Each structure stands twice: as C-alpha cells, then as structure tokens.
C-alpha cells in the first residue's frame, strides 16, 4: 500500500480544518482531509493507503472528525512514532488502527509497505521494522469491531474492574 509520509506534530486541525466540523459523514469529510495543508491527498489517496508520520500524530483538538475523515478517504492504518492521546483513542474507537513504530524515519513518501499486525512488524524494502503491540483493552474493543459494537452488547459496566 502506498505511504503518505508526514512529519512530527500533525494536528487534527490540519487533518480536518474547523470550518468542516458540521459535517459528520466520513465520505464528505474525506473531500476536505488535509485541505490547505496537503491538497493532493484528498484527490490522490486510494483505498488501503497508509499514513506514516513522526512524533505526536493527531495532537490538538479532540474532534473525532479527524479519524473519520481518514477512514472516509480509505485509510485504515496510521503508523507513527507516537500518537497524541485523544486521537489514539478516537482512532481505536472508530476503527482506524494506530500503530506505534519508532523507526518511521526509514519509510519514505510514496513507498509501498506491508503491515503484519500479528507478526508485529512493517515490511519496507525487505526490511522489517517492529511495531508496538496494541494494549489489551484496546484490542478487545478493536476485536468487537469498535466501541459502538462493543457497547451495544453491554447491558451495564462493572465499575472499577480492571481493563
């Protein structure tokens, strides 16, 4: 899958600017993803493409429109050296997989990579870059198909159980 490479501190205002926040439909949001920051993205991105970035991806606003816009554009995986906390959770909750890989410097824009989640690595140019495992309770949510599906089957929650 083609890589779209970004730098450090990609904020959610850059992913989807404030003026589009009355939109909730992922396909509509996708028309404006990275608008003004990287205009060719919305036009050229293809289903299954992967966003790869440096540190602190998704910092700033808590807008869930950001993972939704990426999903609407066909992106299902974002790989970064680190993620901002709210984005990380929003991504998991909406079904966008955030993968932490300390060595994203080794991945260039436009390259084709493959991701082996079970194996715990990304393959690029025959090289394997390790990815960090997804935390357990997050995995349960992903396995359920996102937080909505997880919560739908829940009658109540056990307060203060351990995740």
């Amino acid at each position: 899958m083609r890589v779209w490479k970004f730098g450090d501190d990609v904020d959610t205002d850059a992913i989807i600017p404030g003026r589009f926040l009355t939109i909730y439909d992922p396909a509509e949001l996708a028309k404006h993803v990275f608008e003004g920051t990287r205009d060719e993205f919305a036009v050229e991105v293809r289903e299954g493409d992967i966003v790869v970035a440096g540190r602190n991806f998704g910092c700033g606003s808590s807008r869930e429109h950001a993972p939704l816009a990426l999903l609407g554009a066909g992106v299902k995986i974002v790989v970064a050296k680190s993620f901002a906390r709210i984005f990380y959770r929003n991504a998991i909750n909406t079904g966008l997989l955030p993968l932490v890989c300390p060595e994203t410097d080794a991945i260039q824009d436009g390259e084709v990579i493959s991701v082996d989640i079970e194996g715990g690595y990304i393959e690029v140019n025959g090289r394997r870059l390790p990815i960090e495992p997804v935390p357990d309770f997050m995995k349960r949510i992903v396995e359920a198909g996102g937080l909505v599906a997880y919560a739908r089957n829940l009658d109540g929650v056990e307060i203060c159980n351990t995740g």
Partner: protein
Amino acid sequence: MGLDLTAPSLPVPANYIRPEHLQKTGYSMSATIVEKIFSQHCGRPVRAGEVVMAPVDAAMIHDITGPLAIRVFYEMGGERVFDPERIIMLFDHQVPADSIPAAENHVFMRRFAEEQGIHNYDMREGVCHQVVMEKGRAAPGEIVVGTDSHTCTYGAAGAFATGIGSTDMGFVLKFGALYFRVPESILLEIDGKFGQRVGAKDLILYLAGDIGADGATYMALEFTGRAIRDMDMAGRMTCANMAIEMGAKAGIIPPDATTRDYITERREVGSYDLASDPDASYRERRHYDITELAPQVAVPHNVDNVVDVTEVAGTKIDQVFIGSCTNGRYEDLAEAAEVIGAADRFADSVRVIVIPASRTEYLKALRAGLIERFVEAGALVEAPCCGPCMGGAFGLLAPGEVSLSTSNRNFRGRQGSTLASVYLSSPATAAASALYGEITDPREV
C-alpha cells in the same frame, strides 16, 4: 425579571466518595492526587498505569462534538442517558449559528436535551470550559469528561478532567463511566513572583516551550509551588487549560483556600482535603522560578515554539483576538484594559476582536466599564463564544495575514487560511500590540 445569574447549587454527586473513605479502602501507600481521585471513585487503591472503568461525575458536550456523541449513544442502543443532571450541554463554537448545518446541529441537540431532561445552557452562557467552572459543575476530587480537548481546564478546581472523543462520550452518556488509564504525574513546582505585566499565560507558554508539545503525553501535570498558590482562579484556569498543549491527559492544581472560596460560592462540596503525598511517585519533578520570566510569545505554527516577546517585537500584525477559554475572563480583560490605559485608539492597521468567555464575565467587564474602553479604542466586542479561536465561525484570516491571539493554539490554518500566521500571547501583550499594530512588549507601554 432577568436571567438568574447565581449558579445552581448542585447536590454532591452520589458516587463521590469522600476522602475518609480512603481509610476504609485500606489505601495507605503514598499516592499522587490523581491516583487518589481514581482510588476514591473505585473504592480501592488504584495505581498509575492501571486501566479502570471509573464512574464520571459530570460530562460536557458542545455544539461541535456533541451531535456525533449523541448519534453514537443511539447507535450503542442507548435510550436514556445515565443521569441527565450530570450532563452539561451548551453551544459555543458556532453561535449564533453561522451556517444552516450549524443551526441544524443546535436543533438536534436541543431535541436530545428535551427528550432526556438535560438542562441545556444553549447559547446563552458562553464558552464551555468557562461555563462549567463558573456554574460549579466541576469540583475537587471529581472526574469530569468533555468532548473537547481543553476539558483539562477544570483541573483548576482540583478535578481530574480530561477531553475525550465523541464515541467515548456516547459510551459515557449511556453508562456514566469510561475506561481510563490512570496517568503518571509530572510535578511542576513553580516558585517566585511574576514581574510587572507578566502572568499565568506567560508561565504556561514558557512551560509548553520547555516541556514540548508531546512532553507530557498520557500524563497528568500537577501544578504546585508558591506562584500557583498566589495565583487567582482565572490564572489557574489559564494554566490547566493548556496542559493539553503538552499532550497531557489532565492538568491539576491541588485544592486550597482559593479553590474553596471559588467553589463554595457555587455549590456544596464534601471535602477539599486532597493533595499528593510528599513521597508520592512522580514520573518527573521539574522546578521553575518565574521571577525573571519575560512576557512569552508562541510563534507560528506550534504552541511549543515559544520565545521572549523581545525576540519578535516589531512583527506587524493584522488582527488581535482577546478572548477564548484560555484568556477571556474578566481578569484578562482588565489586564488588557490596564495596558491600554489612557491611550485613545488601537492602531488603524489592526482589527481588534474582544470576546468575553461568558455572559457572567461579559457583565462583570461591562459594569466595570471595560467594554466601553475597548469599544472606544476601536475594538469589535462580540457576544460570548469561541469566535476566531478555532476558525470555525467568524474572524477568519486571509492568506498572508498575521494574528496575535490570547487563545491556546496557533496551528497552521487554525484561524483561517493555512497561509496565515498566528502568534499566541497574554492579554497584556495582545493589548500592547494592538496599540502599535506590531508585537509589543507590554512592559514598555
């Protein structure tokens, strides 16, 4: 009869477990204030790093992220919210509605409030974080969530408060609880006394520059030390507000007499006796002395790009915005007005937009004659709302324009064109700069 300006006095939430409960839970090890808050809510000792399903005392939704949260609530099979009295609803980002979709979102949320029996502040009160604080909806020892990243503001009240996404909020609306990873804390000990026309905003900008935009990711920032003890509630809110700009999950200021005075005017609270133990374990302890601190400015396009005002003095600006949940309180407006002093007018080359953070703050400023001063000097004073802060409503910037803003983010495109530039500063620096049409050291006005 006018609107009731006194805040409703809310009952102490049922699931608020008072500190004396700690003994019963056998909590004897030393802990941070954040660990204590989670332990109190869980009825057992909880450590940083643990993931727990914790009950929330209050949940805030606004017009931008609320509609999605409500949709998710329904998609999760939600019928009745967990407790309508603990849900805070208001509109602030796009008010009065600036587009038909925005108006539709407002209608959608009003219907939900009616259906569920939720009190809706609608667009009457102001910016979400200011309203939650001034209505006493966040108090020491509580866990409060909001679908807005600056929910961490309520750490000024000694609450554990954090921003969440809409899907997490859908879950909260249904169950009244959420999974949390209890964060480690970074202790910030801030000593010294601010120099003239230097204050809380300069401190928090300096800290953002020093700690970095991701320096506190997943952690809680605990603010202590003399400078914090001396600080009024407005300044504390400015500090806690920007904890997220360092990636923090929460910022928290242990409650003291200032907190108590602020909260008791608004509601009853079980206890203010809540602080970290001296030997609590921190990820890191950092010490600062602010005595020599100069006014700070965050330069485009990152909040942690922070310099002394002297380094950017003389930069021409097109727009000044004084307002937002960071610096739209009476104290901020008074600070700006003091700098303007007897000066006649703002520079002709600059547009000045002043927006009080809430109706209450607006009235205070109005009665003190501050609003008149701003209007006389040439400002556009708007009704309480987020305004240009997030570039969603009005006050947008054209390509190439430069703005100086007292808000909390200067990301590329945040206030309009991605080819515009946003600088961040204190209200004093913003006012001084508005007088000269260029970034100006407020100590020299």
